[in-house]
C-alpha cells in the first residue's frame, strides 16, 4: 500500500521533507489552502525533489454545499473555476451540470500536471438510498466518458465522499457497492472520504466518531470489492486505519499533520471557535497502534521499551520536544512501516497478522496498567476491541 500526505493548513516544509526522506509516495493537495498560482509552485517544489512523485489534487467540490453559508470556511476554494454551487435539481436532472463541473475540475488538474485526476463529487450526507447518492452515482458514471472526451490519459479516480452513517446500513451499503462495481464505463479507481461529525484542526476526538465496526468494516469492504473488480482505492484521511484498508486490498492511504487531515469531516468547512491551545505533540507507536503524548511516551517506554518504533524519526523525540514538522515525519514513517509490516498481499494471512498486532497492543496496554499507568486504559482497550470487531464484520460481509 502506498502512503500519501494529505495536504492542509500550514504545510511548511513537512511534505518536502517527507518526500526527501521517502516516507511518503505522493501527496493529495487541498485547493482550500492553495490558489491556482501557489498550487503550481508547490508542485514544482515537490517534483524538484522527486520527479516521479504522485501528485494529486482533491477538488473538494463536495464543500460547495457550504458556499453562501454565513460561517463558511472555504479558504481559497472559491478561486477555482469549477468550485461553483450547483443546484441539486440541475445535478439530478440531465447531465450537463455534472459534465460541466467534471470538465472544469479536470482542466484545473490538467493545468497542474497532476499524476492522476480526481473527479469531483458531492457529499452523501446520510444514506446510500437518497437523492444525494443518485447524484453521486451520476458523477461517477459520467466521469470516465468526460475524461475520454477531453483526451485525458492519466488514471482517473472518482471521489466518493460519504458520511459514516451511510456505511452503517449494511443492506444499502452492499447495494451501493454492487452498483459501483457494475458500471459500463468505470473509472480507474475511487477516492474515498469517510466523514465524521464536526471537527477542527485542533480536536483530537473526531476519530472516535468513525470507530464503529460497521463503518470501518464497510470501508474495508469497499476497498476489497473495488480490488476484486480491478479498481484502485485511494483512501483520504485514513491515517491509522490505512493498514486495515491496505489489508482489504486498498491501494493508497493518506494522512496529514492536523487531526482534520487524519479524519475527514465536512465540519472543517465551517468556522469553529477561535483561539485555544495548540494540540499536544504526539508520537505514533506501532506497538500500541495509537498516537500517544510525549508524557505518555516517556512513562510507557520506561516500563515497556517496545512501544518505541526503533525508527530514525525516534531521534526527534530524544531530549527535546519535536517540531510540528518532525511530528508529522514521525507519523508518516511509523504508519508507512506499520503498513508494510502487516501487508503481504495474502488477505487471510494479513488479517491474521493484524489481529496478532492488535492483540499485542492490548497486551501492552494491560502491562502498562499493571504498572499503574491506567489513564485512558479502558478507552484504549475499547478502541482496539472495535478494530477487532471491524475485522470480524469485514470477514463476514466480504465472505472471507
Amino acid at each position, binding site marked *: 500500500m502506498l502512503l500519501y500526505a494529505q495536504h492542509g493548513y500550514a504545510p511548511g516544509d513537512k511534505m518536502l521533507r517527507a518526500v526527501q526522506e521517502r516516507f511518503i509516495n505522493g501527496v493529495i493537495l487541498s485547493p482550500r489552502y492553495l490558489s491556482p498560482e501557489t498550487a503550481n509552485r508547490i508542485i514544482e517544489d515537490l517534483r524538484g525533489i522527486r520527479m516521479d512523485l504522485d501528485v494529486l489534487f482533491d477538488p473538494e467540490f463536495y464543500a460547495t454545499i457550504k458556499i453562501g453559508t454565513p460561517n463558511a470556511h472555504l479558504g481559497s476554494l472559491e478561486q477555482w473555476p469549477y468550485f461553483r454551487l450547483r443546484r441539486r435539481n440541475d445535478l439530478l436532472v440531465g447531465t450537463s451540470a455534472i459534465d460541466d463541473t467534471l470538465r472544469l475540475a479536470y482542466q484545473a488538474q490538467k493545468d497542474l500536471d497532476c499524476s492522476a485526476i480526481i473527479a469531483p463529487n458531492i457529499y452523501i450526507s446520510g444514506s446510500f438510498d437518497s437523492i444525494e447518492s443518485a447524484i453521486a452515482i451520476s458523477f461517477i458514471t459520467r466521469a470516465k466518458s468526460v475524461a475520454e472526451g477531453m483526451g485525458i490519459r492519466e488514471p482517473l479516480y472518482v471521489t466518493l465522499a460519504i458520511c459514516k452513517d451511510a456505511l452503517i446500513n449494511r443492506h444499502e451499503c452492499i447495494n451501493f457497492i454492487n452498483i459501483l462495481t457494475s458500471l459500463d464505463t468505470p473509472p480507474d479507481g475511487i477516492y474515498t472520504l469517510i466523514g465524521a461529525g464536526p471537527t477542527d484542526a485542533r480536536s483530537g476526538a473526531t476519530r472516535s466518531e468513525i470507530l464503529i465496526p460497521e463503518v470501518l468494516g464497510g470501508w474495508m469492504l469497499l476497498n476489497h470489492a473495488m480490488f476484486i*473488480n480491478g479498481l484502485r482505492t485511494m483512501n483520504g484521511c485514513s491515517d491509522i486505519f490505512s493498514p486495515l484498508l491496505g489489508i482489504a486490498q486498498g491501494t493508497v492511504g493518506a494522512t496529514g499533520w492536523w487531526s482534520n487531515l487524519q479524519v475527514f469531516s465536512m465540519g472543517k468547512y465551517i468556522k469553529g471557535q477561535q483561539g485555544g491551545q495548540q494540540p499536544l505533540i504526539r508520537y505514533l507507536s506501532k506497538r500500541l497502534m495509537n498516537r500517544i503524548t510525549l508524557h505518555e511516551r516517556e512513562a510507557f517506554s520506561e516500563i515497556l521499551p517496545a512501544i518505541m518504533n526503533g525508527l530514525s524519526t525516534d531521534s526527534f523525540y530524544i531530549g527535546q520536544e519535536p517540531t510540528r514538522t518532525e511530528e508529522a515525519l514521525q507519523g508518516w514513517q511509523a504508519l508507512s512501516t506499520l503498513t508494510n509490516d502487516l501487508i503481504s498481499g495474502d488477505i487471510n494471512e494479513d488479517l491474521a497478522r493484524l489481529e496478532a498486532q492488535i492483540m499485542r497492543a492490548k497486551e501492552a496496554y494491560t502491562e502498562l496498567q499493571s504498572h499503574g499507568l491506567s489513564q485512558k486504559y479502558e478507552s484504549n482497550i475499547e478502541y482496539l476491541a472495535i478494530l477487532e470487531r471491524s475485522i470480524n464484520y469485514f470477514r463476514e460481509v466480504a465472505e472471507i
Partner: protein
Amino acid sequence: MEHVPSIDLIRRALPDIEIVDFIDSGGFKAVFKVIVGERREALKMIYIPKDEEDPEGHAEVPQRIKLEIDSLARCSSQYLVKLGSIPPREIEISGYKYILYSEEFLEGRTIKNRIRELYRPTFSECKLLLTCLIDVVCELKDLNLIHRDIKPTNVMELNIPERPYAVLDLGIAFKIGSTAITINPDLRLGTLPYMAPEIFEPGFRETLNHRSDLYSAAVTVYEYSSGVHPVARRREDHNTTVYRILNNRPTPLSEFRPDFPRQFCTLIDRLMHKMPALRPNIATISRTMEGL
C-alpha cells in the same frame, strides 16, 4: 409439459418434417428429434396455455419464445446452441395451441447425466467447461442478456474437440432494460438450486446483471467437479434451499478436489460469493484462467 402430442399426431400435423423420436419434455416445452433434408435437428414444441386456464402463461409464452429465438439468432458463441432451419410457427393439435421451431441437434450427454454417472472429471475438463460457460456469459452480456438458467441439465458435453460443451435453453433469458415479460413481479424464474442470491432480493430485476450467470456457471462447475451441489441438499423444501443460498457458504472446492490447482478452486469459490460485487469480474477470470 402438459398436453405433449404423440409422434403420430405431430407427423399428421407436420407432414413436411420427418419426426424421428421424442427426446425430453419439461415446463412448457417438449423436444423431438427430427430430420430436415438430410440434417438432424431438435424440434421444440412449446405449449401455449389457453387464456382461461392460465392467462399469464398465455400472454408470456409467445413473448419468451420470441426473445429466445431473437437472442439465439444474434449470438455467435460456438458454445451456445444454434437455431435450426425450421422457423417459428404456430400450430394446433387436438385443440391445443403450440409454437414450434428447431435448433441444431446436439449429440452428447448433459453435464447432469455425467454427474449422475458419478463421473470424476479431470481438471482440464473442468477448466474447459468454465471457459465455455464464461464465453457464453460474456456474449450474452454484450447483448444485454442474462441466461438465468445455467445449470448442469442445460449444458451438453459434445464429442467435438473445438466445441467441447454447449449451453442450451435461453427460454427464460432476461433482457436488461426491456419491458418485463413476466407478468407477476413476485415470480422468480429459474431453477432454484442454481439461482444467485440476489434474485431473492425485492426489486431484483432492477439490479440483475451478468454476475448472476457467473454465479450459476460456478455452481455448475463446482457440482461437476465435486459431484456435490455446493448449497442445495436432496429432499429439502424450497424455503430451506433459499435459506442456504442466502446464508450458507459452500465447502471450498479444494476440499473435494485437492488435485486441482488452488487458484482454480479459489476462483470457483469466489464466483459463488453471495454479494455480486465480490465475484471476480470477467477480466480477473480471464487473467486467472490464463495463468492455469
